[in-house]
């Protein structure tokens, strides 16, 4: 793996990790944007260089697809969630797990991923050498999803998990990208629609208070 790719993946992993600790919805949306921007930037730059050096139609298509992908995950999805926040509230809260327990769980996630990285490094095919980073970011994102009570933060966690698959996703056929982007935006719109409706029904953004009894 090239150094620049490692740096980009490290930045996005760090942004995901910070997502565990932030308090407000606005902060976590910013982190989502940073994570997505960092993770796709290297691929975007490669495509730009290919376009500038080759000046071919194929390069232009490649660049356009990568740019659309990068823009959708770094700008469009965060903006949809931000719109949800505007319609509801910028909630400031803590995760459902205590700092101590959360810390232990995070350390366990990071250590197990490092062990996985060491174990798989000898036989990892070159095309999926970013898998350890993907696994770590994915685990952290699922951790965010599982430990937050603000539904918008949960939705951000879901987006971070989706973004974490980007290094593998970049290998997928070009023709699928519009569909994938459409789906990503669709899921976010559905999520925000449900959250705003639930906010109207329950008058709160804490999913703990959304519980109903028969």
């Amino acid at each position, binding site marked *: 793996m090239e150094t620049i790719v490692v740096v980009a993946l490290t930045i996005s992993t760090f942004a995901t990790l910070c997502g565990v600790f932030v308090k407000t919805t606005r902060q976590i949306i910013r982190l989502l944007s940073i994570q997505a921007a960092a993770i796709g930037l290297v691929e975007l730059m490669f495509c730009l260089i290919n376009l500038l050096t080759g000046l071919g139609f194929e390069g232009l298509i490649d660049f356009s697809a990568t740019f659309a992908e990068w823009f959708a995950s770094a700008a469009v999805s965060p903006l949809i969630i931000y719109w949800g926040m505007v319609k509801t509230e910028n909630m400031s809260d803590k995760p459902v797990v205590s700092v101590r327990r959360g810390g232990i769980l995070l350390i366990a996630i990071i250590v197990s991923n490092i062990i996985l990285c060491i174990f*798989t490094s000898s*036989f990892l*095919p070159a*095309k*999926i050498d970013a898998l350890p980073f993907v696994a770590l970011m*994915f685990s952290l994102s*699922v951790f965010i*999803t599982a430990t937050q009570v603000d*539904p918008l933060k*949960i*939705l951000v966690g*879901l987006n971070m*998990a*989706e973004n974490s*698959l980007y290094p*593998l*996703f970049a*290998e*997928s*056929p070009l023709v*699928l990208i519009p*569909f*994938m982007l459409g*789906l990503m935006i*669709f*899921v976010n719109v*559905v*999520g925000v*629609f*449900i*959250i705003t*409706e*639930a906010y109207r*029904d*329950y008058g709160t953004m804490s*999913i703990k208070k*959304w*519980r*109903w009894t*028969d």
Partner: protein
Amino acid sequence: MYSLLPLLSLIVPFSIGILHLLLYPFWFLESFFKKIEKIALLSGTSLTLITVLSMVPYILAGGESARLEVPQLSLYANSTNIAGVVGVALIFFLASIYNVKAEKGGRLKPNMYNFFLLLFLCCMLGLLLSHDLFGIYLFVELTVGVSVILVAHNPSKLSTEAAFKYLIITAVSALFVLLGVLIIFILTGSSNLFAIINDTNIQTRLIENPLFLMLAVACFIIGLGADIGLIPFHGWLPDVFPGSSIIINGFFCAEPIALILALYKLVYPFYRIYPSNAIIAMMIGAGLVSMVSGALLAYPQRNFYRMLAYCSIDEFGHAVFALGLLTSSMSFITGQFYLVNSALMKTGMILSLGSVFFNTGTGNMDLLGGLFGKMKKTALSYIICALSLTGVPPLSGFYAKWLLYNAAYKFLLDLGGILVAVLALIFLVCISMISFIFLIRSFHRIFMGQTAENMQKVNEVHLTMWLPTAVLAATSILLGLQPNILLSLIGAA
């Protein structure tokens, strides 16, 4: 044989759905559309059913080797999926008849509601017909997204919490499916399942990386398992059933056919390439845990929708268990027969209970009773479908259970000898007995005994609401007496 019919069966519901969507900006047509919305949906589902049925003669005539295909889009209809395709289209057709009187409006405007229902149908047919890994992923995610919106359509408070839970669990699980698809694609360079099965170079590349192949298969089982509602990823299902409107629950009965057959489609090719017992263990394990827990958790429920949710988990478990007996030649035939039959019977039960909810406004079985005299047709349809689901002869469920026990016995006889096989059979019969007990008990609690005072004015529902359930009950009797009708579609007659 090259044929546009598989593509047409997707285009028909999709284009009719788009027509509904295009009406959305024309607010002045809203009052007119309200008058024809139900007929428009019914015409969409009936046209789709006709298109789907038009594929059947070709496949029946050609036997196991017959295949209608659009290779450019990896869409194939053959004996492995035509029963599922017909089952889904039939359930949608019957549910849209029920929809005529049962749908009372909700959060979505009528044209959006129709658009999402037809898109839902299109996604499920796409999931069944597509043999491309990325195609399957796209249809899985779209199916989940659309079904979440349909849950939220119910104007009650329950729906939003259920829909959000459903969205998050299934969206995370869809990422597991994507991860599995990407691993296979990166390793092989191909996403077409037929190419993966038939190309020896691709197979070699997969066999050289067994760990990643197993990781991909595990991702498929976890991802689709959560979308289906298998234990331990079932958290959303018992909330979604009471949270959705009565008619949406009817449409949802078609979903497991598409998702469970998609799971088989994703797992079986890789088992053929790398026949590891771990794959069988994962499939059978998921099936067994779901059937045991589903049956045990359904028993104490007071709300009939929650009872049916756990009963569904039990049924999904049976189907996944049957499909997971990968070494047995009977596995796929049994699994498919079981799946299609249980989906049809569950539709009958859910629509019957929907009629009870429609008339009484409650799903709490403690508050119900004595409705048999007032809703005879609904009650009879419910009990016939329930008896069929539990495997009572001469109904279709008996044949499904018979096939399942046969397949399980043969599989376990080879694996662990006669003692293990017999013990496993006793165990499976006990699970069926639990289902039998709680379903008969529910019938007794809802329809028998004294009528509560506030239920005195309850009457039978409209013809459009009891007719679909009666058709499903009749189907159960017909398939019980002539199982070859369904078996010939599966290619096993």
